[in-house]
């Protein structure tokens, strides 16, 4: 039996796209104020991609950095930024503000 080509392509595309479209990643917000992260401990689901929204309330730029998460991004003063992390194995992942490493410290806990 001959199946027309177009429906077959459409079915294949749907099959490929379905898992991608399942759900937008969970969103977690972190604020930077006075060179500190709020909250400084962030809980995220393990083995899932997570969208970190970092809002810098300080007038100075900060660099969100984590060796454990393999992430590094400058958040300009007064700006909002997005960093995707994970999927992570359960565990603790420290992060810090590279421009103010003494005060800006935090950790992501994947569970």
């Amino acid at each position: 039996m001959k199946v027309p080509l177009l429906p077959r392509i459409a079915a294949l595309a749907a099959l490929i796209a379905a898992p991608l479209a399942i759900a937008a990643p969970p969103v977690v917000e972190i604020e930077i104020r006075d060179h500190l992260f709020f909250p400084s401990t962030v809980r995220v689901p393990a083995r899932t991609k997570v969208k970190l929204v970092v809002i810098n309330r300080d007038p100075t730029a900060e660099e969100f950095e984590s060796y454990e998460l393999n992430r590094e991004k400058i958040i300009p003063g007064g700006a909002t930024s997005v960093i995707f992390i994970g999927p992570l194995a359960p565990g603790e992942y420290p992060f810090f503000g590279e421009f103010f490493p003494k005060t800006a410290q935090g950790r992501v806990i994947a569970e």
Partner: protein
Amino acid sequence: MLLSTLIVVLQEILEAALIISLLLVICRLRGASGRWVWPAAIAGAVGAALYASLIEEVSLLFDYTGQEITNAALQLGIYLCLAASALLMGCGTERRERLLRLTMTLAVSLAVVREGFEILLYQSGLMASPELVTPLLVGATLATGIGASIGALFYYGLLSVPAAPRRTLTLGLIALFGGNMLSQAALMLIQSDWLPGGAILWDSSALLPEDSLAGQLFYALVGYEATPSLTQAIAYFGGFTLLAGLAVAATRRGDNPFTQDHRP
């Protein structure tokens, strides 16, 4: 403050210093001038200032991931310039020489933009506090001095290696640097969710922590990551192999300046 400034600035400078040294070694071995490095550095500094001044606008692009996309584009650009340089470096015609100078100039300019804008943003935020100005300037000056010294050490170190292994070593280092650039570009695209990260391949953070001095040096030199993802590894090894292949193919052609070795 002085120490953290020194570390932040040095981290950024190291990578640019290493690629400048490597390209200058190639020029020296080919008997070509390395004077193009000055306009390249100045153009890069201007580009870095422009990028830093536009950072807020750039950050908003692509759903708040404009910074990652721009950085990935810069790193991909550096890679393409290195690949073009590798192809051109085996030839000796005047036209190709001019082209080679252009691709090397562009590679260094892009590297300076990429590293320089972070230094500028770091500095500009803190310069607003009068008590920080002195430690910032001293820290940045020290970091520039140390970065330049490491670059010089690397340059003369490479030149002092005997001719035959030096050729392989220089090409190998260029290919490693290229692999590193592609891997960093891949990481930026993972961070912005344009590419899937894939599995974490290994964890060597206990053996060689990324925040140690050796870890930082290895990061600048060969793109060391304690916990690399599959996508990054593919980018790294793909980039390395392609660049090494191009360099070997280009320098194999018999009568060319690179293999003749013009070192006095």
